[in-house]
């Protein structure tokens, strides 16, 4: 009896396990085998620099309307802030970072940009015309759109 139960369990595992494995694993890398070289990345053509882009909802991190190639953000310096900090924005003619960027994790207002807002490209991205990776039916808030 014990033997029989074990056999049933093992067979079930195999059958179920197989069906799970057969399902396509959804990742950005697609179905490429782990040992194979990944597909060459799509060539991205960044959009030309422009005036600030309209926002789609109120709390949206604004999109970056210029190229950021080679702009480093590390312990030594943050290239973005050489133009966007309150000390520099006038000279650079850039938008200054808003006060939310000074708020620390526990809600305390700091004198300089907060550590959780230091890595700008976590939230802000430059623009390119590419195929969406995942289909979606997002629509921007109409009230915010310029007329």
């Amino acid at each position, binding site marked *: 009896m014990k033997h029989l139960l074990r056999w049933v369990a093992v067979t079930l595992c195999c059958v179920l396990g197989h069906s799970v494995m057969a399902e396509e694993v959804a990742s950005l890398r697609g179905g490429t085998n782990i040992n194979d070289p990944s597909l060459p990345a799509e060539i991205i053509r960044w959009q*030309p*620099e*422009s*005036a600030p882009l309209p926002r789609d909802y109120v709390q949206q991190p604004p999109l970056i309307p*210029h*190229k950021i*190639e*080679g702009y*480093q953000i*590390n*312990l*030594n*310096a*943050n*290239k973005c*802030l*050489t133009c966007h*900090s*309150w*000390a*520099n924005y006038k000279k*650079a*003619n850039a938008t200054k970072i808003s006060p939310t960027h000074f708020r620390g994790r526990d809600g305390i207002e700091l*004198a*300089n*940009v907060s*550590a959780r807002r*230091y890595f700008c490209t976590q939230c802000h991205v430059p623009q390119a015309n590419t195929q969406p990776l995942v289909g979606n039916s997002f629509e921007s808030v109409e009230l915010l759109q310029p007329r």
Partner: protein
Amino acid sequence: MNQETKKAGWWSALWRPSVRYSVFSLLFIGFVIGVMFWGGFNTAMEATNQESFCISCHEMEENVYKEYKNTIHYSNRTGVRATCPDCHVPKEWTHKMIRKIKASNELWHKALGSISTPEKFEAKRLELAQNVWRTMKETDSRECRNCHSFDSMDYTKQARRAIQQHTEGFDAGQTCIDCHKGIAHSLPDMHDVDPSAVIGG
């Protein structure tokens, strides 16, 4: 005793007029030797003006060279490359000689191992960068202008931010390095230079 008179004889012989050779052949020999020295000198100058020479020091190869390889001056749309000496060694003869003589100080620090590890390099980096910034400021970024000249810039073809900053910046007498720090390498620790652009401040 014998040895000494021999030496003295050699020396005085050098000052005696030649009996055996004509003035022309002596001039010719002098000319050939001169060409050889000058050629050798220039070859050495050229050899030390190659990128491969600059990065034969591991200090340069491991830090600045690796960073520069990710920048526009290493690889770009048009395939025109700016190498280390293009930005760091003046083209014009006298300025070039002065830079080369200054470089002997760099050899001295190489021997001392002043920047022999990445940590030591990082610690010295601000000082090194400030030396370059100061020189470029003094020369109105001469090495940049060897390739880029604002007279030949077509502003209308430039990006939005560049047009605005270039027209205003040049009118205000600013030079390339005022705005384009860190164009070929990672920036040094900027805490003292621009505290609003670093973490913590």
